[in-house]
C-alpha cells in the first residue's frame, strides 16, 4: 500500500495535467488582485448605504475570501475533476492499467492508494488557492481586518461581518478546510466514474454533468423537498463560517452530507473495481 501511494505521487508529480489547476488558480488570484487594485472595489455600494469607510478593506484576507466565493461553485471542482477523473480511466486508456494489475498488487490496495492521492491532491489544490490568494493580496494590497459580505444565502443571514486579522485568518482556514471536503465530494464522483469508465473524458464530463444537473435541480423550487439531499446545496455552507454566531448545526450537517457522498461513491467504486474485468 505504501509503495502504491509513493508511486502514485511520483506519477502525479510528473504529469503536466497535475499543474494545470495550480497554474490557473494562481493566474486567477493575480487577475483578481489586479482588478481590485485598479478598479472599483466590489460591494462598495453596500457600504455607501450608511457607512463611511476609513482606509480600505481590500487586503490579502479579503482576496482569499472573495476568490473562494468565485471559484467554489465551478472552477475549483473542474480543476479537481480533471486530475481525479483521470486517475484510473486515464491508465485504462493508456494501457497501463493492465500492466499495473498484472503485477502482484491487490486491487483494493491500488484503488485505496489512488483515492488517497486524489484526496491529497484536492486538499493541496484548495489550500494552494487560499495561500496564493492571501499571499498575492497581502503583497499588493496589504493585510488587515477581514470584511465579508453575506447576501441571501441558504443560511438566511445578510449583512457585513468584519473580523480582526487573527480571527479572520482562523475563519478563512476553516472555510478552506470546508471547501476541501466540498470539492472532494464532486471529485469522488469523478473518481468513481474513473473506476468504471475507460476514458478520462467520460469520467470528468460525467462528474461535471452531475454537478451542473444537481445545481439546476437545486435552483428549481419545485424540487425543494430534495434540496437538502443534494451535495451542491451544501457546498456553499462554508459561508456560515463568516457569520456571528456561526450556525454550527448547519455547517456540521453540510459536512456530514458531503462526507456521505464521498463514502458512498468511494465504497461503490471499490466494490466494482475489485471485481471488474479489465478489458482495456
Amino acid at each position, binding site marked *: 500500500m505504501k509503495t502504491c501511494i509513493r508511486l502514485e505521487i511520483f506519477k502525479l508529480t*510528473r504529469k503536466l495535467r497535475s499543474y494545470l489547476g495550480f497554474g490557473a488558480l494562481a493566474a486567477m488570484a493575480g487577475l483578481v488582485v489586479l482588478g481590485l487594485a485598479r478598479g472599483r472595489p466590489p460591494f462598495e455600494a453596500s457600504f455607501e448605504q450608511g457607512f463611511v469607510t476609513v482606509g480600505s478593506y481590500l487586503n490579502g484576507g479579503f482576496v482569499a475570501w472573495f476568490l473562494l466565493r468565485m471559484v467554489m461553485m465551478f472552477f475549483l471542482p473542474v480543476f479537481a475533476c480533471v486530475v481525479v477523473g483521470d486517475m484510473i480511466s486515464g491508465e485504462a486508456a493508456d494501457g*497501463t*492499467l493492465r*500492466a499495473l494489475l498484472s*503485477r*502482484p498488487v*491487490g486491487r483494493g490496495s491500488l484503488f485505496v492508494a489512488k483515492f488517497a492521492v486524489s484526496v491529497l491532491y484536492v486538499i493541496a489544490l484548495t489550500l494552494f488557492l487560499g495561500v496564493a490568494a492571501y499571499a498575492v493580496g497581502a503583497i499588493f494590497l496589504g493585510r488587515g481586518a477581514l470584511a465579508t459580505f453575506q447576501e441571501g444565502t441558504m443560511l438566511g443571514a445578510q449583512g457585513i461581518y468584519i473580523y480582526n486579522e487573527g480571527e479572520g485568518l482562523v475563519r478563512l482556514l476553516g472555510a478552506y478546510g470546508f471547501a476541501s471536503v466540498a470539492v472532494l465530494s464532486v471529485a469522488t464522483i469523478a473518481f468513481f466514474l474513473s473506476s468504471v469508465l475507460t476514458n478520462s473524458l467520460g469520467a470528468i464530463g460525467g462528474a461535471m454533468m452531475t454537478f451542473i444537473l444537481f445545481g439546476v435541480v437545486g435552483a428549481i423550487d419545485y424540487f425543494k423537498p430534495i434540496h437538502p439531499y443534494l451535495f451542491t446545496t451544501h457546498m456553499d455552507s462554508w459561508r456560515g463560517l463568516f457569520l456571528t454566531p456561526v450556525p454550527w448545526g448547519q455547517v456540521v450537517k453540510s459536512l456530514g452530507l458531503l462526507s456521505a457522498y464521498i463514502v458512498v461513491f468511494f465504497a461503490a467504486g471499490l466494490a466494482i473495481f475489485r471485481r471488474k*474485468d479489465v478489458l482495456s
Partner: protein
Amino acid sequence: MEVIVEVSGLKKRFGSVCAVEGLDLTVERGDVFGFLGPNGAGKSTTIRIMVGLVRPSGGTVRLFGRDVWHDRVRALSKVGALVESPGFYKYLSARQNLWLFSELSGGVKREAIELALARVSLEGRADDKVKTYSHGMLQRLGIAQALVSEPDLLILDEPTSGLDPQGMKEVRELILSLARDQGLTVFLSSHLLHEVEQVCTKVAVIHRGKKMAAGPVSDLLHSRKRLRISVGRPAEAAAALERLDFAQVCEVTADSIVVEADDGRAAEVNRALVMGDFDVSAIVPETMSLEEFYFSLVRSEDLH
C-alpha cells in the same frame, strides 16, 4: 516435474458470448509453451484470466499452486507479463517506467533494470521519454517490462507483433536463451506458426474457446500422418476414402491424393483402396509442418 501453470475447467462468458469453454492446460517448469489459435479463439481472454485481469465465469487458474483470482498477490509474485500491446507512461522515460513496474513486484536492484534494458537493446534510449518511441521499441520495452522483476514465469501475448524480421529473430533468440540458460518457464501466445515451431517445446491449439490439441510439438506433428498416394482415378478413390473414419482427404490432383490419417493406419488406407479396385502405385508419408497440423485441426473443427 513441478507444475507452474494449471488451468482447469476454465470458462468465461461475456453476456451471451462464450469466449472460453472448459479449457484445461498444464505448463511445467522449464516449458516454453506455445498457445495457438486464430483471432477470436479465446487466447487473449485466457491470458487476461491468467494474469488476474479478468474474472473467470467458471474453473480456475493456478500459478505456482495459487489461485490467481482469489490469491492474486502471491500467485503473481513471480510472474512477468506482457498483455497485448504494451502500455507505458508516455511522460516518463523508459528507465522510470521499468523502475515503477518493478517496484510493484517488490523492487529490484538498479542492475536488474539495466540488464532488462540491455536485453532488448534499448540501453542507448533509456532516458528518453516513452512518447518518442517507435512501435517496435515499445514492443521491446514491453518485453523488458515483463523481464525486469526477474520472474520465474513469463507470460507473453504475441511478443513479436509489430517487430521487423530482425527484431522478431532477436526476441525469439532472447526467449530461447532465457528458457535454456536461466530455466525460465515461458507461456506465449502467437498466431505465427513458424515462430511457435522454432521456439516452443509444447503447444496447445485452441479454437472457439476449446482446446483442440496439446502436447510436445514433435508428438503432435507425428500424431497424424500425411500420405501422398499415387493412384489411378483419384477423384473416385478420394470418394471411397471419405467413408473411412480415421482418414481424411485433403487434396486431390490429376494423379494423386493427399490423405491425413491417424498414425500407423497407412496399411489400412492402402487395403481400402486395393479392395475398392484402385491401382495404388506409391504411398509416400509426409511430415506435417505445425502450420499444416494447425490448419487440419481448425478445418476439421469448422466442418463439424
